[in-house]
């Protein structure tokens, strides 16, 4: 199981702060594509972290089943 955490405006789209995705041998890019189809993030941009580290290239990144993925959009309030 891969845990996906959502923050800020992204969590507002998903209407939850995390969820578990059951899958084996999925790449980070595939996971993001699945989430995009499910939630239609559209113009929302965000950075992606795996196990508390921001991933600069999400292509060719293989996920392990115990990984925790986080979607972090920029905030603008102050």
């Amino acid at each position, binding site marked *: 199981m891969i845990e996906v955490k959502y923050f800020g405006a992204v969590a507002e789209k998903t209407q939850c702060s995390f969820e578990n995705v059951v899958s084996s041998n999925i790449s980070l890019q595939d996971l993001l594509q699945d989430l995009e189809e499910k939630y239609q993030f559209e113009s929302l941009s965000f950075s992606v972290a795996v196990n*508390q580290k921001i991933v600069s290239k999400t292509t060719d990144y293989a996920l392990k089943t115990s990984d925790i993925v986080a979607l972090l959009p920029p905030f603008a*309030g*102050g």
Partner: protein
Amino acid sequence: MLPEIGETGQYKLLKSKVLIIGAGGLGAAILPYLAAAGVGEIGIVDDDVVELSNLQRQVIYKNSSVGKYKVEEAKSMVTALNSDVKVNAVAEKLSGKNAIALFENYDIIVDATDNLQIKYLINDACLITNKPMVYGSIFRFQGQVSVFNYQNGPTYRCLYPDENSSSVNCTDAGVIGISVGIIGMLQANEVIKMILETGEVLSGKILVYNVLNNEQQKYDFEKNDSFVMDRNIFKGKYSQKENRVEEISAEAVLNQIDNEEVLFLDVRNEDELPKITFRNSIQIPLMNLEGEIEKLDSNQTIYVFCQSGMRSKIAVELLQKMDFKNLKSVEGGALALKELLTKEIKI
């Protein structure tokens, strides 16, 4: 006295110069603590005046501050608190024109703004002047804190390379003052740690804090060297695109009356004549605009008009600050429109 600070630490504080961009919720939290700690010189940049709706989170202002420049009110608060602090109140909007010259006079730059585009400007000016940028921002009950460009460390662009993304600010999203206060406090803490050279600075890490469940996480990110910034690039990037107000002539407006993609926003008061309504129009008096902003969609094309074309320019500037993108101010306002409409009917 804390042994970690001592007399040497106090001297370091006295010798330090900190620039705070934004005298809103974050700035109001950061400023009194830096002043009370004895930071020798503090600059504050903000061109806004205090509004009643600010008081729930911008706690350094009073009822009597309403209508006055934030930086002036902030300065008198600091002087009353610690008269040893030199305060520079800059009642200007930060722009490509003033950023570099301002930043050069300080050691640490604090981002207390509520606008994504300005964060890129601050980041880039920090890169050029080689100053650390203490970042903080809020989305409803969550906040982010980080320190960019600290000893050549990663920058805001390494974390968020996409400059064209959007996010709502506090006025749009709604926020409780305490969330902003907590994040501002964490920023002030980073400032003090850098000055005292103690602890671990949040460089290459972003802290995400959720005030609803008190969860916090740190995420690491690395420096991306592919982005280059120098004075020439900076100049080219920021010199021409200062928030200019685009205008549209009354004649051109008449061709768009039936365009369903365009919303006409009348910012006059309800009793002003002549009354002008189009199929797709709405009236929100200028003074209510900020409070009733939820009636508008920031992605829609909006033509703003008033009686003669002055207030509509102010309204466009206000909306631009709130990340509205497709705005035009109608030249000559309702009077020019009325004149053309009357002619048209005669024909």
